[in-house]
């Protein structure tokens, strides 16, 4: 009698411990899931890194990644900031800004766009999609997609 009693209580103890282990295996992922991440939830405007800002000062333009997209940010002759998709609308090469002529140029097939993204010459069929570029008082520059 005593044997079955201790065996049963051992089983009960084992069962209880396993139940706790099982509960832990559920609670742990849930706790991790619920703990908010430090980074922002949703991709808002991207801030240009210091490297990008240096490039912007040096060459008057920088190509910055915004999620999956490449964005061309440049400063025109009037020191105004512009941002367009850096993907040429012809065959998808990355464009660059030529400050001397104040044009956006694609080296692949010699396409030219003006500072508003419109096609001036060459094979590109469509203008460059625009992005919104803003500057805050601390000198940080932000790029965001244009609201549809």
């Amino acid at each position: 009698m005593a044997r079955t009693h201790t065996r049963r209580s051992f089983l009960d103890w084992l069962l209880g411990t396993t139940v706790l282990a099982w509960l832990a295996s559920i609670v742990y992922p849930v706790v991790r899931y619920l703990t908010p991440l430090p980074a922002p939830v949703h991709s808002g405007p991207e801030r240009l890194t210091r490297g990008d800002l240096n490039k912007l000062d040096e060459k008057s333009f920088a190509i910055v990644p915004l999620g999956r997209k490449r964005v061309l940010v440049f400063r025109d002759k009037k020191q105004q900031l512009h941002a367009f998709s850096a993907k040429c609308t012809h065959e998808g090469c990355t464009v660059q800004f030529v400050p001397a002529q104040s044009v956006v140029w694609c080296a692949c097939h010699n396409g030219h766009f003006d500072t508003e993204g419109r096609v001036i010459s060459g094979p590109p069929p469509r203008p460059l999609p625009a992005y919104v570029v803003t500057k805050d008082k601390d000198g940080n520059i932000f790029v965001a997609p244009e609201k549809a």
Partner: protein
Amino acid sequence: MSDQARYGGVLGWLDNRYDLQPLFRFLGHKEVPIGRHSLLWYFLGGATLFFFMVQVATGALLLMYYRPGEATSYESIRYITTKVPFGWLVRSVHCWSAHLMIVSLIVHMFSVLLLKAYRRPRELTWVSGYALFVIALCFGFSGYLLPWNELAYFATSVGTDSVKSVPVVGQWLLEVLRGGPDVTINTLYRFFSFHVVILPLAIVGLISLHLLFIQRQGMAPPIGETGPSRGMRFFPNFAMRDLLLWLACLLILLVLAVFLPYGPGVPGMEWQLGLKADPLAPAYPGIKPEWYFLWVYQLLKEFPPHILGLEGPQLCLLIVSVLGLLWGLIPWLDRRARAEQESPEFSDLGFAAVFFLLFLMLKAWDIGATKGADEAANLATVARTCAWIVVVLAVAINVVRATVYRHRWFLLSGTEVLHVVLHGFAGVPYLVAAVIAGALGGFALLVGRWRTPGADGGVVRE
């Protein structure tokens, strides 16, 4: 109120205040009837409940990060599956559990049909269960749109389109469902309300009702079983078995979630996030609604644009509604079961329904189609291949029924098999084959009644 502690600890504290004795007495006496082959079937309702509870839990978790909106629905789900720790797991489990819940629900409904558990006095249990089934399908349909991806967008467009065939209020109904004439983000907002508030309230209410009926009446014993019925105590025996099954279901869920995070890769049962919904993009090639709607989708295709003075889709929906209504009225239609008699016709009806739905589903999946072949030839090939599959399965199932379960009544399932054969092998159009098979089946039924008038035990049949 006696002072002595009947139970120790917490239970005793509660008992002192709420008198738990009647509750425990009731629970202690609750029994599950054990028949010849049937105990396994009694677990299916619980399994469905388990999957539902998983849905509630994972759904609540998902809701913490999901943000409905034109620019946020897709993106937030992307965020959940890529950045949130275990977010991929929560979403994957939620999607898998949805489908498994509906599978389990269908098998549960089928088992109730075979066991005739719907018979008097449990008619309302059947009706509430049927309503639960419809609500579950609505859950699936509304939830599908929430990721706001291409697949969801087109599946919803195709799915909601069918309501405009409802006479008089069709167009209004369409616009109410969609929040406008087309599927837009407003549709998502409405579906979100349904999925997260309206349907959960309804289903919790109906589940409570369904369970209340079962608690009050006990589980249905197998039909016509004479002699003292053996029963298994619910607590703790059946309950522990139930828990065992629930753990097994959990295991299956987790394995599926890790190894097949986007579903089995079957059209109508896949949830890869893919591309964001773009109303201006052309429809997704091979777009199919979820698998539990495929039979309606295919049936709609079988109707010509105009038939019998009505529009094809209208007639189809009418027929589907009538069939649905009849299904809900089964407890009253099955006179034999009401009289506690064996009712092989309704068992056979269940199998006939399975063959009917299966054939349409397989056909909707274009099983047997070859790429590049012209459409007309492909339709015939698909019909033939699906017919083969259904016929082989039907023969196998009916052989098992005849040998193991000693069923003798095969008229309805036979009629449906004939229907499939006529359409798939003889190339007869689907509806024409249905009429022919139905006529032959009806004729055979009448002949049977005429030849053995006493066989129905004097119970008048329609």
